[in-house]
């Protein structure tokens, strides 16, 4: 009996405390993959609570459900993908999800054990690329950005070395298994390596890369919602919080170059 009497009173007082700290508490549900997305969200959660946005982080380990749930209105926002993936998802699933902000890149870099500066790259140099479609194209797009090659369709995220139309340095391309690339570094002039494989091989993306994808990478990880919710104030606050100086510091301290801020 005691409980029955006290419970409503307790609920009331909790509500009163909430009302005092956050005058207009908004609930925002976010779908995210565990690392680093959910970790970044946990980091901004207290800040957002102070601004009256209560973040409900739902961790997913697959790449379809987070988009599907947002499209169905079950979840407000998601944070796990890059734009090329969102584009192909929208096309395949006939959804109209939109990006409202970008946070970080898991960058792709060029490494060499022969040259210290990309300007020293000789004509006819050997360049090693990953041999799978998405990473291979990503490597070619990065080379294109550096002005080393030109692709038939400059935005093709599935380009292969056969799509190269201009190659002024007459670079020779070798396509290898992505994980093998760090091991063959001594045999080629340049190798384009995913950051996770570079880190595993003891390379430091910050210090060792000749050039690396920056904040303007099309592969920056984005915050996504539906067209209808794109102007939602809570979502705006979330994006602002994720693009804060504190998050930049947090990313640089915690991930040490494995991921870089894209804002």
């Amino acid at each position, binding site marked *: 009996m005691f409980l029955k009497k006290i419970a409503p009173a307790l609920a009331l007082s909790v509500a009163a405390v909430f009302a005092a700290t956050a005058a207009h508490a908004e609930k925002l549900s976010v779908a995210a993959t565990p690392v680093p997305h959910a970790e970044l969200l946990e980091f901004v959660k207290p800040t957002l609570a102070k601004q009256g946005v209560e973040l409900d982080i739902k961790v997913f380990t697959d790449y379809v459900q987070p988009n599907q749930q947002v499209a169905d209105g079950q979840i407000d926002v998601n944070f796990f993908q890059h734009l090329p993936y969102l584009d192909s998802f929208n096309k395949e699933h006939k959804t109209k999800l939109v990006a409202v902000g970008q946070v970080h890149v898991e960058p792709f870099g060029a490494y060499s054990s022969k040259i210290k500066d990309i300007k020293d790259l000789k004509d006819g140099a050997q360049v090693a690329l990953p041999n799978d479609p998405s990473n291979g194209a990503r490597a070619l797009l990065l080379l294109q950005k550096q002005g080393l090659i030109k692709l038939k369709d400059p935005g093709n995220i599935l380009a292969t070395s056969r799509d190269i139309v201009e190659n002024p340095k007459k670079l020779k391309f*070798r396509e*290898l*298994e992505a994980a*093998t690339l760090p091991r063959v570094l001594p045999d*080629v002039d340049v190798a384009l390596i995913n950051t996770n494989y570079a880190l595993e091989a003891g390379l430091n993306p910050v210090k060792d890369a000749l050039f690396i994808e920056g904040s303007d990478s099309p592969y920056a990880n984005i915050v996504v919602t539906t067209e209808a919710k794109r102007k939602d104030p809570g979502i705006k606050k979330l994006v602002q919080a994720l693009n804060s100086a504190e998050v930049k510091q947090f990313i640089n301290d915690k991930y040490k170059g494995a991921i870089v801020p894209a804002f």
Partner: protein
Amino acid sequence: MIFGNIDWPLIGEATIDTLLMTGFSLFFTVLIGLPLGVILFLTSRHQMLDNAPVYQVLSFIVNVLRSVPFLILLIVMIPMTRVLAGTSLGVQGAIPPLVASAAPFFARLVENVLRELDPGVSEACRAMGANSRQTVLMALIPEATTGIVAAVIVTAIALVGYSAMSGVIGGGGLGDLALRFGYQRYQTDVMIVTVVILVVMVQLLQVFGDRLVARLNRK
């Protein structure tokens, strides 16, 4: 168009890569595997140079190399490949691991062929005063020629298959093409064409081998 993804010059290049890889690897495989097989045979029990420690050690090395998955051998050998071939990449880089994998296999085949021979031949040689070197060169090898040729063909076909995995180190070749375009990019036509070329290659090898064996047998 059914064959819209096919880039014929690329296929031609890959075919040449496969032939180069198989050809050179086969040459070195025979060069290393044949003596190794003969030594394995001679040092085994009740043979001319019966020597248990030598046999055990060689046999162990052969077994180890044969049990390491080729894909792993390809990667583990990278530093050694660099020393032997000058690079760990491409066709050149694929040859040392191919040889390391095929030579022990071929040596075992040779050992078995020699074991199947009638022991009377070498006994007769010994009785006439031939030393073991003479016995091997003048009696064993000539007697075993057809069996060894058949073993070379079996090894060559195994090498065609193994060379498909060289794509991991940028070795190129038809298998690499089938994997990269046929499998990863869903270009089924590329897969079909490369596989058909591989089948034709293996068929030709087998027919040629069978003919050679038949001719040798008639002599």
